[in-house]
């Protein structure tokens, strides 16, 4: 029985991850693809945060009376990953802007048609 509530976060993370991946694959709109990519990445952030949680633990702050605290390392790691995610999103969106200038559309299918012509 202990398994059931304890694993719920991981189920949520996996569902979120697959949703993100599905959006990236299924949507033809370049901005929607980036949104999907974001959902996908956020699920991984949640995976790390979930791992760090210690039952009954507080925030990892050094103060009197605090004996049990969550593992701070995954938090720090994911801070780095969030920065990377922001950079990727920014670069992706910048590319979409330039694609829009060059092709006049951000729909995958229409871009494919335009590319076939040249």
């Amino acid at each position, binding site marked *: 029985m202990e398994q059931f509530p304890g694993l719920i976060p991981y189920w949520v993370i996996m569902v979120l991850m697959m949703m993100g991946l599905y959006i990236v694959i299924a949507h033809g709109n370049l901005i929607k693809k980036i949104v999907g*990519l974001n959902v996908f990445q956020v699920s991984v952030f949640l995976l790390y945060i979930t791992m760090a949680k210690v039952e009954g633990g507080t925030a990892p702050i050094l103060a009197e009376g605090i004996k049990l605290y969550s593992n701070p390392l995954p938090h720090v790691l994911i801070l780095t990953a969030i920065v990377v995610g922001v950079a990727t999103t920014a*670069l992706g969106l910048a590319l*979409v802007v330039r694609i829009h200038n*060059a092709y006049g559309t951000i729909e995958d299918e229409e871009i494919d048609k335009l590319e076939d012509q040249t």
Partner: protein
Amino acid sequence: MIAQHLPILQIVLPLMAAPVCMVIRHPQVVWIWATLITFLCLPISIALLVQVMAEGVIVYELGGWAAPWGIEYRIDKLNAFVLVIVTAIGAVVMPYARRTVDTEIPVSRVYLFYTMLLLCEAGLLGITITGDAFNLFVFLEVSSLSSYVLISFGKDRRALTAAYRYLIMGTIGATFYIVGVGLMYNATGSLNIYDLSKLIPELGGSRTIQAALAFLTVGLGLKLALFPMHMWLPNAYTYAPSAVTVFLAATATKVAVYALIRVTYTIFGTVDILEIVPVQDMFMVMAVIAMFVGSLVATYQVNVKRMLAYSSVAQIGYMMLGLSFDTVTGVAAGIVHLFNHAAMKGGLFMALGAVAYRVGGVRLEHMAGLGKKMPWTMASLVAGGLGLIGVPLTVGFVSKWYLIQAALEKGWWMIAVLIVICSLLAVVYVWRVVEVIYFRPVSEIAQEAKEAPLSMLIPTWVLIGASIYFGIDATTTLDVAFAAARTLLGDGG
């Protein structure tokens, strides 16, 4: 004093030099600065390789924090060798880049181009040198993000979509990789690669570790363009600026292959992977398909740059095939092919860059009759092409010789036959180009073409020369590769 800090200098130098480019901004000065930095990186990596070969593993603790708590750089024979490949290509590309950049990139953006090139080199070196699995992810993203930007510098508008698609695939790959690292951390509580290699065997059977292995291999497989995850590669290579194609084709996929070797042979090396999941078998199947599909598709390309890109997919297949044998000869053949392919493909893409510079395109019709107009460039193209086929006295022969030997050692003569058949396919696509450049009349587009400038010709011939020199006398590269393979497989040495 400095000798002790070489491992960190290797990374810090290009990493800190990149933002300096943003301050300088003047196109020519930036170029001199970037070239200087890459010239400094090369002797550092060579010094590291010499030291590792003589004294064994170098461990460098960042900030004096001992592993597994701190991040350490851990250099053994394998990554010292890869460092030399990356820095050597970087040092050769820079002098070459100046002319191509003049024609392909707007003057106002040139300084950004060199910033990104230095960042990309720093990222690739970081992936290679680090001994920390999460640190590897950070460097992976440094190199990937800068390479997306570099590809989008291409003149053709399709460079933008190629960069975008690479960004999507690359980010999925890198994210898969951190999922894998997270699962490993979950099970072991460590991020240090060396530490993991000692902790994982006890947990080898657990589902978490198996899932981690799956995520890591798929993530890195996307990065190294292993068939069928290679879809981003042909367009990215075709539409990127010439210097970028040379740099990425010769280094980026090689470093990803290195990262995969680290995962399968160091982290999971002591676990009998075959008993858990048949990873090696899957690698072999995908490698053989990559060799065939890559070579076949290459034979009907009209854009020669695209043809070589597909040939890269095939050549990555050879490397992965070597790794999948799981024997010293096989792994050594894979490792030595990292170097050999970097030299050949780098030289070939440089020759094509010279054609694009003089003629303005690299489709077959642009190249007709160029044998008379640009004899030295075309000779390098032919020499590199012979290397791709695997003709004796070229590096391609050395790689294939040891691959076939490794296959026969295992008694898999079918694989040996397949390697030979793929080489015949290479004859087909190389011959198509040779036929066009020597036996067709000069096309109208190329009437005005003349020999490539020396600043392009010399780097081209340095790489092609290396691909011939190390084909005739392969002892140096083979010694390092075999020593690295023995260490990886735990046979001492």
